[in-house]
């Protein structure tokens, strides 16, 4: 049994044993959980994929004369100005004004909030156009200026839901034409199966009951440093689990935040999903302290131990109906082919395993060099016990 503080002491003294999640699988396989728990202090995880519930909070600084922002666009992408005078929230999926959307076939959604965030990280100037009410204290009614990451008082990545713990596999089981979804192009037949998780490298799949990840956990976020601020929206820890505690579908989520300065466009990327919309791909790495033998066991999870439900995105998902067409493991998904409805189909990954591996390796290096210390959660994430689950919406109107 080790504490996070003991592990931090070992990191400071240069004695900590830090391994990536990929390395941990092999260590536990050859040495067993007990020896691995004694030897290894930290396991680094990683994931990189489009995560739509993301955005950035800016304070643009006060101009003279002052303005209370009423409307604002950044490179033509609307940002939310319903905050204090010069605070703005830019959502990753906010779309440039005038984008044709899907009006002439599946749209390109070439530029959105995620791309603005990436542009800022690339050091590019972004045009802000804003209007104000004109008040006694904030008289300006119009503002047009170039901004850059360096010119902003604050620029913070603020993502309400990232890092899904497992996720559905999407197929087109019932339409006769290719469909365009947030899981990409799904061909009829089904002709392919899209999935989006780093599987055995993914943070929450290596700590399935959130023993070490909670509010206050310091993480690798977009190439810089960030923090878990609690459970993400739609956190559903009560999803059924297998014998190892791995949820059998999308379940836990994280809300995260971190200073955009210090992040890298390598790990924060604007995304255009044909026929669906714009988004942001985010790289996240969570260090998991190997507190005891149980954590060694959890971090030894393999792709074959993780299965995901196959969902029809042509009718069932849009209608919020239907049952999974089956379950497949990440080992099968990573092989490139899975069997769905008795038919072998190709798999299409949306989560970059290459990037996930890099993130886990970079985080490992940062911990080893002493520039990244672990933090114990201030509050744990809600686990399966409290019965937290998503509440479907049944629209209703005033009588």
């Amino acid at each position: 049994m080790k504490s996070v503080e003991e592990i931090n002491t070992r990191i400071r003294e240069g004695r900590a044993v830090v391994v990536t999640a990929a390395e941990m699988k092999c260590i536990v396989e050859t040495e067993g959980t007990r020896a691995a728990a004694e030897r290894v202090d930290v396991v680094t995880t990683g994931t990189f994929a489009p995560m739509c519930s993301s955005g950035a909070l800016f304070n643009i600084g006060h101009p003279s004369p002052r303005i209370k922002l009423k409307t604002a666009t950044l490179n033509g992408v609307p940002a939310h100005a319903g905050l204090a005078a010069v605070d703005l929230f830019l959502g990753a999926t906010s779309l440039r004004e005038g984008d044709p959307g899907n009006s002439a076939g599946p749209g390109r959604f070439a530029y959105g909030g995620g791309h603005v965030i990436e542009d800022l990280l690339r050091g590019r100037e972004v045009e802000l156009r804003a209007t104000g009410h004109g008040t006694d204290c904030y008289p300006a009614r119009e503002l047009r200026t170039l901004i850059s990451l360096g010119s902003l008082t604050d620029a913070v990545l603020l993502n309400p839901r990232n890092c899904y713990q497992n996720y559905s596999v999407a197929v087109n089981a019932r339409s006769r034409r290719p469909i365009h979804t947030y899981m990409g192009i799904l061909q009829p037949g089904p002709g392919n199966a899209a999935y989006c998780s780093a599987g055995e490298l993914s943070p929450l799949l290596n700590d399935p009951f959130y023993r070490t990840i909670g509010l206050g956990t310091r993480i690798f976020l977009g190439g810089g440093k960030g923090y878990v601020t609690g459970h993400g929206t739609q956190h559903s820890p009560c999803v059924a689990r297998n014998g190892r505690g791995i949820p059998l579908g999308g379940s836990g989520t994280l809300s995260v935040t971190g200073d955009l300065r210090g992040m890298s466009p390598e790990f924060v990327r604007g995304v255009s999903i044909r026929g669906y919309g714009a988004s942001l791909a985010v790289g996240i790495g969570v260090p998991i302290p190997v507190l005891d033998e149980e954590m060694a066991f959890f971090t030894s999870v393999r792709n074959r131990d993780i299965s995901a439900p196959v969902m029809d995105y042509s009718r069932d998902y849009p209608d919020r109906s239907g049952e999974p067409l089956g379950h497949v493991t990440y080992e099968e998904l990573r092989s490139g082919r899975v069997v769905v409805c008795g038919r072998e189909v190709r798999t299409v990954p949306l989560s970059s395993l290459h990037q996930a591996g890099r993130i886990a390796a970079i985080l490992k290096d940062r911990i080893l060099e002493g520039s990244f210390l672990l933090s114990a959660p201030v509050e744990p994430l809600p686990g399966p016990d409290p019965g937290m689950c998503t509440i479907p919406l049944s629209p209703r109107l005033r009588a």
Partner: protein
Amino acid sequence: MSGVTKTVLLEFPPDQVGKPLVSRAVRGFEVEINILHARISPSEVGRMLAVVEGEEPEVEGTLDFLSSSGVRIAPPGEGLALDEELCTHCGACAGLCPTGAFTVSREDWKVALDMTRCIACGICVEACPYGAVTPGGAFGFTEAGL
């Protein structure tokens, strides 16, 4: 004289799309033409990836005939460009590529592109969320034409 096999990308201008040029080529020359992939619509630029097989003078004659008929000819693998800087190696392209031109290494999970297998169908351009695959090269593909 020995036989040769040439894989070529053919671009048919809109005013030539309605003419049976491939048929005329096969009738006029001692060649076999194997069409691997084609995207032909009336009044639009048509594109075709084809293998032309026969004795060298016959193959050359076929290509000269097509060229003199207004068909642009390019070696395969010039229909697309992969920007390594923009690629995140997610593999979405590889999961949809019909010919296996895009592959994901099981060593480091990096995406690789073998342009000799590319038939310029363009599904990778649609599938890439990062704009890393763009139409381009010899034909100057416009996205609308894909």
